[in-house]
């Protein structure tokens, strides 16, 4: 007989109550992980941003184009390593509910600056040579069952007309933070048709991506670029890729803040559920704890009994919760429109955080019952009628 045996028997004493506590903790942990995962998905762009990339866009708004002529001038700025650019093509593929990024890019440099899109060199060579070729992410290929050589028909909106692309490359995301569902094609193909069909929009690009040698210089280089185009027809705003991505979030920031707060409220709920169970148990056992104290059991041993039981419940509960989180996250993603969150995964930090909070909550939930047990005098405890 060890004290541990008593701990286990205590935990199993009220099976229904323990089960309900476990399920309560499990559901809360799942909700926590799900919320954190949604927040993660929202921040995916920020997470994926590289410290050595700056984004230069129109000072007024991202939707206004910049002249392609800026490119060479930006490249002259000391500390700038490479300049590439992209245009937001948008358009409708199949129907309006298919979300993924469609970009016209400078195929010579874009993939240099974005090494996280991993393409086989052979595919890339073929892509570069073909006028209306495109590269798609593996998720797009899977989602629409597209293979190399397949055609993609896109109804233009920002750039009206029927557009035909042929899939010549399928990229793999380098890691979990990389968007696996984008489509890129040659800017020169876009420009070719724009020049014929909408000549007034010729020679414009959406934004520049500037790779710099030293991330520490990002502020100085940004200032220098923007100074260069001050008082020109199209003033620029340059910022780090991270800041740029964050500016996209500002519209949703209230929602994200709410979700962040909610996820911590959930931890509080877990604490209440478990704390309540532990307080009830300890109260019912007032008599027994008094007997244990009379027999000579120490405060440390009583702590072991009470906190141990709380930890068993909280650990099992959160294990249960994390176990159902995986299918829950998948179900959640399936329920959303396709491509809503291109990057959607459970961060390891979320799991670690879940486990650590379960542990801390277990300890915290035992504070009140333990205090009560320790401060109740033995003779009072023995008198107690439960």
């Amino acid at each position, binding site marked *: *007989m*060890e*004290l541990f*045996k*008593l701990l286990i*028997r*205590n935990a*199993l*004493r009220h099976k229904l109550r323990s089960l309900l506590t476990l399920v309560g903790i499990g559901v809360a942990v799942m909700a926590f992980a799900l919320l954190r995962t949604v927040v993660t998905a929202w921040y995916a762009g920020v997470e994926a941003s590289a410290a050595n990339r700056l984004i230069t866009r129109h000072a007024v708004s991202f939707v206004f184009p910049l002249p392609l002529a800026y490119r060479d001038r930006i490249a002259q700025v000391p500390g700038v390593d490479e300049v590439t650019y992209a245009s937001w093509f948008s358009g409708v593929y199949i129907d309006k509910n298919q979300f993924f990024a469609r970009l016209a890019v400078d195929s010579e440099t874009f993939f240099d600056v974005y090494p996280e899109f991993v393409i086989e060199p052979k595919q890339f060579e073929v892509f570069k040579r073909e006028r209306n070729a495109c590269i798609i992410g593996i998720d797009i290929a899977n989602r629409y069952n597209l293979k190399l050589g397949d055609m993609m028909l896109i109804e233009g909106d920002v750039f009206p007309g029927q557009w035909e692309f042929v899939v010549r490359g399928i990229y793999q995301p380098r890691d979990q933070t990389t968007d696996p569902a984008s489509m890129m094609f040659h800017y020169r193909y876009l420009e070719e048709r724009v020049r014929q069909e909408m000549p007034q929009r010729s020679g414009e690009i959406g934004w520049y991506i500037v790779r710099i040698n030293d991330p520490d210089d990002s502020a100085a280089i940004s200032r220098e670029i923007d100074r260069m185009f001050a008082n020109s027809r199209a003033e620029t705003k340059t910022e780090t890729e991270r800041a740029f991505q964050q500016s996209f979030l500002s519209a949703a920031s209230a929602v994200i803040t709410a979700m962040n707060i909610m996820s911590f409220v959930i931890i509080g709920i877990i604490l209440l559920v478990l704390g309540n169970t532990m307080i009830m148990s300890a109260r019912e056992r007032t*008599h*027994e704890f008094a*007997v*244990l*104290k*009379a*027999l*000579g*059991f*120490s405060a440390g041993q009583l702590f072991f009994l009470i906190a141990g039981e709380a930890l068993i419940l909280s650990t099992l509960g959160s294990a249960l919760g994390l176990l159902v989180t995986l299918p829950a996250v998948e179900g959640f993603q399936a329920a959303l429109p396709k491509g809503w969150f291109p990057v959607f995964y459970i961060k390891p930090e979320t799991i670690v955080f879940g486990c650590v909070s379960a542990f801390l909550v277990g300890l915290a939930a035992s504070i009140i019952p333990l205090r009560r047990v320790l401060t109740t*005098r*033995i*003779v009072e405890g*023995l008198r107690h009628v439960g």
Partner: protein
Amino acid sequence: MESPFIEVVGLFKSYQRDSLEIPVLRNITLNISQGDFLAFMGPSGSGKTTLLNLIAGIDKPTSGKIFIAGMDITELSETELAVWRSQNVGFIFQFYNLIPVLTALENVELPLILTPLSKKQRRSHAETALHVVGLAERMHHFPRQLSGGQEQRVAIARAIATDPAILVADEPTGDLDKTSAEEVLELMDRLNRELNKTILMVTHDPRAAERARFIRNLEKGELA
């Protein structure tokens, strides 16, 4: 003459209720030799349980001294008292106070966790104690599967498992029928005679008190 085993000197105990001080024990002085079997009797509320608890070291007096084997236990800290109890006192309660989720054997092993004995030794000690109380066949039963008399005998086995010098029993037969009460008293008698345990028992039952070698009466917090 050497000093007695238990020596209570000028013991006072009062409880504070609101701003009122309620005296419960008044100037108790008492000597008990090793191997005595002493019964405390007296009307309800006369302070019997309080006195027993003080001698057993689970309560602190307002003033006065309690020397046990020459040591003043009123001077000990909570932690020291806990250790002292685990080595010197066995408890027998009116309502047995067994842990319901532990078997008879496990209940008896419980106080042995506080000793330096190995797991194996603890088990064999507990089995021996259950033999002594005649419940060896019931050792894997849970308290709810035992009769009141059997539960009390398990409680006695738990009290003697660590081989303490003193047994305190607060109305050990108070909740038992006549036959079971006889068995329990017989057992306590044997523990006193054969194992030389010093037994302090509180009881209302004159038949129980008859088993003791001495009877002391408490009246409104004073020894008569």
